[in-house]
């Protein structure tokens, strides 16, 4: 790209493609699919940014990353500047650059989107984060002098980690309690290695440890200690326990061996490393797998089954392609890898022999009239049922918070769906000193929204620790 003449920018409408492993190769391995921009591609892509007077991308980002700022610095070759700008608003840019649904967020409102070629903000974010890490440029944020206050953070997913990091930065002492044997939440047990390499997540967690956080694993709040007991030991508690409890459909045959939740399938493969040769944890190696649902979780499960050797993998989804909730890139990758999409299809029963799954019975759907939100609901087509042989069904139709804290904290206000009721600006619950954020409040959402909630809660916790005032306060911004 030639340098634009001063004052005026040449509009370059070629979004630089992301180098990736070829589909037929990657569908047999667990190494990362998207390889990341080279310095050259990143510089070219960064120079496509028009550095608009009225940039809208920042409003599209749930944590308001200074997008034009970091891209400007990158375009100038100032990697150190770019990473520090990014990290001002986003603790985990290497993660977000990989897993944010950019096409619905920052890139959806980029002024170039109308011309069909928004700047590849996510890819640039990833490049800056990876390159800076490679050059050892990422330093843990400097903690302020100690305030002597102690905060317990429950759950170590993106919400808990972000909250912990901000609290440390503000000089508070933090102990993170995690139920599983490794911290990271969905980033560790859910999202597969080929999409988010675990060493990236571990690197970020090591930094939070280096800042002084104590991380206690194998500790289940509600069981190892109740929320009230923690509250009595700490000056404040943040609950970021996610929405991990998987839903099932309640249709015949669902308890057959061979039907499992996406969480079980992905946890066996990721957290328990069943994808590695020699790992002890059993994981089914199907011939034909059907994954029910079409969100990110479903794409991850389907592509995992393929990598574990399935000959055929179907995504069974009751709506059409337009309604698919997964990130666009994941859908495209899944299609390239040969995942078969059965749209407008609803499982109605599972069949088996000797307790083991052998078939899935599906019914075709058509889209009905739009509802009040404008979404067209699927309507069954009578008599369209058909059987498909398969030996693994993975349910990825949604999840809600586990009941452990709710069951043992009767005064904590929760919704009918089991989510904790908390103010969305401050994370304050109905119990003074108890804050909550992330999926446990919203139901399953996104990494960046969980991080945003962790950050808002940290600011509000700081406020409470300094003032002792519990009235729900408006967070700035």
């Amino acid at each position, binding site marked *: 790209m030639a340098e634009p003449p001063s004052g005026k920018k040449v509009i370059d409408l070629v979004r630089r493609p992301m180098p990736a492993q070829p589909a037929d190769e990657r569908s047999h391995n667990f190494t990362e699919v998207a390889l990341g921009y080279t310095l050259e591609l990143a510089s070219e892509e960064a120079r496509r940014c028009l550095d608009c007077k009225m940039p809208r991308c920042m409003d599209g980002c749930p944590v308001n990353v200074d997008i034009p700022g970091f891209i400007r610095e990158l375009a100038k070759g100032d990697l150190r500047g770019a990473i520090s700008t990014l990290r001002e608003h986003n603790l985990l840019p290497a993660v977000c650059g990989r897993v944010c649904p950019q096409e619905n967020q920052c890139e959806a409102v980029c002024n170039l989107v109308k011309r069909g070629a928004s700047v590849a903000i996510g890819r640039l974010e990833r490049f800056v984060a990876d390159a800076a890490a490679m050059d050892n440029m990422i330093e843990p944020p400097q903690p302020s002098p100690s305030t002597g206050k102690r905060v317990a953070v429950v759950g170590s997913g993106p919400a808990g980690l972000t909250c912990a990091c901000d609290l440390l930065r503000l000089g508070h002492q933090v102990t993170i309690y995690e*139920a*599983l*044997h490794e911290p990271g939440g969905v980033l560790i*047990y859910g999202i597969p290695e080929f999409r988010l390499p675990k060493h990236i997540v571990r690197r970020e967690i090591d930094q939070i440890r280096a800042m002084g956080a104590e991380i*206690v*694993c*194998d*500790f*289940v709040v509600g*069981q*190892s*200690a109740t929320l009230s007991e923690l509250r009595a030991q700490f000056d404040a508690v943040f609950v970021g326990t996610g929405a*991990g*409890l*998987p839903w*099932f459909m*309640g249709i015949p045959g669902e*308890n*057959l*061996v061979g039907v*499992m*939740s996406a*969480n*079980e399938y992905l*946890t*066996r493969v990721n957290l*328990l*490393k*069943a*994808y*590695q*040769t*020699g*790992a*002890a*944890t*059993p*994981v089914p190696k199907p011939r034909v797998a059907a994954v029910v649902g079409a969100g990110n979780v479903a794409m991850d499960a389907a592509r995992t089954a393929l990598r574990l050797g399935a000959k055929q993998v179907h995504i069974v989804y009751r709506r059409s392609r337009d309604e698919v909730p997964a990130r666009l890139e994941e859908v495209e990758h899944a299609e390239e890898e040969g995942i078969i999409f059965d749209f407008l299809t609803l499982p109605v029963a599972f069949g088996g022999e*000797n*307790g*083991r799954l052998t078939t899935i019975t599906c019914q075709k759907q058509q889209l009905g009239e739009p509802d009040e939100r404008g979404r067209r609901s699927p309507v069954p087509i009578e008599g369209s049922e058909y059987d498909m042989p398969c030996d693994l069904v993975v*349910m990825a139709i949604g999840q809600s918070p*586990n*009941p*452990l804290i709710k*069951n043992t904290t009767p005064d904590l206000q929760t919704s009918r769906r089991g989510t904790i009721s908390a103010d969305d600006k401050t994370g304050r619950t109905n119990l003074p000193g108890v804050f909550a954020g992330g999926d446990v409040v919203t139901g399953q959402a996104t990494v960046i929204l969980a991080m945003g909630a962790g950050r808002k809660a940290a600011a509000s916790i700081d406020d409470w620790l300094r003032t002792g005032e519990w009235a729900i306060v408006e967070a700035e911004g």
Partner: protein
Amino acid sequence: MYEIVERRQLVPDHHVLTIHAPHVANKVQPGQFVILRSDEEGERIPLSVADFDREAGTVTSVFLEAGAATMKLARLETGGTIPTYMGPLGKASEVEPCGTVVLMGGCYGIGALYPIARAHRAAGNRVISILEAHTQWLLYWTERHQAIADEVYVMTSDGTAGERGLSFDKLTALLDGGLAPGLVYAIGCTFLMSSAAKLAEERDLNLKVALNTVMVDGTGMCGGCRCSAGGEPKFACVDGPEFDGRAVDWEGLMARRRAYRPQELATMRRLDSSGKLASSKPAGKGPHHG
């Protein structure tokens, strides 16, 4: 890392495992379980709690060496460490005054019943323990049960100790003799529990069983432990592990227990004497609760 205070074979294939884990010991109640891993590559294994000492910060389980996972566990040495020990998990037993409580256990269940029996005794109930084993040399903890129970019956399949027969037979005889227990507990293999359930159905007994389903996380996250009780879907790790024995769908449960059998055998064949996996082909072994 958690210290192995004791790992000892009680009788062939049955081991006692005591771990120093104050975070569990502080809170654990009878009827709860823990999840542990024997090493960093290891599978997560659920085990019922068979005893605990809050002051010493220790928790004890009895496990049966059944699959590859518990085979590795059985090779751990006293004084060593394990990387994961999580809990207490599941709901505690409800212990209320209810007259006579009969506790029937076999296999790891003899251990798992012990703290429950102790709690019922402390609550003022009359406690009758029925301990079952194939043969005399597979019996353990008889004296422990004798020390807390009002009556202890021993049943062996071959008649080498106590009476010949199953715990099921003893309970039937006691009922025929006019015993009217307020509560019956059955913990052990699925066969023991499901046959107790049949009897409970016939004789209208209040029966509690502790389910040993496949489990991964123990927090309601995987759904691997799902079962059906009273026609309702349940997650054994958070809704249980104890359920009304008459409400459980036993057939569905047994099918699910068999989930990973073929892979489990494959792993066992690859375990060499050090407990390390021998070859490099991916395979697995079955979760075990016991």
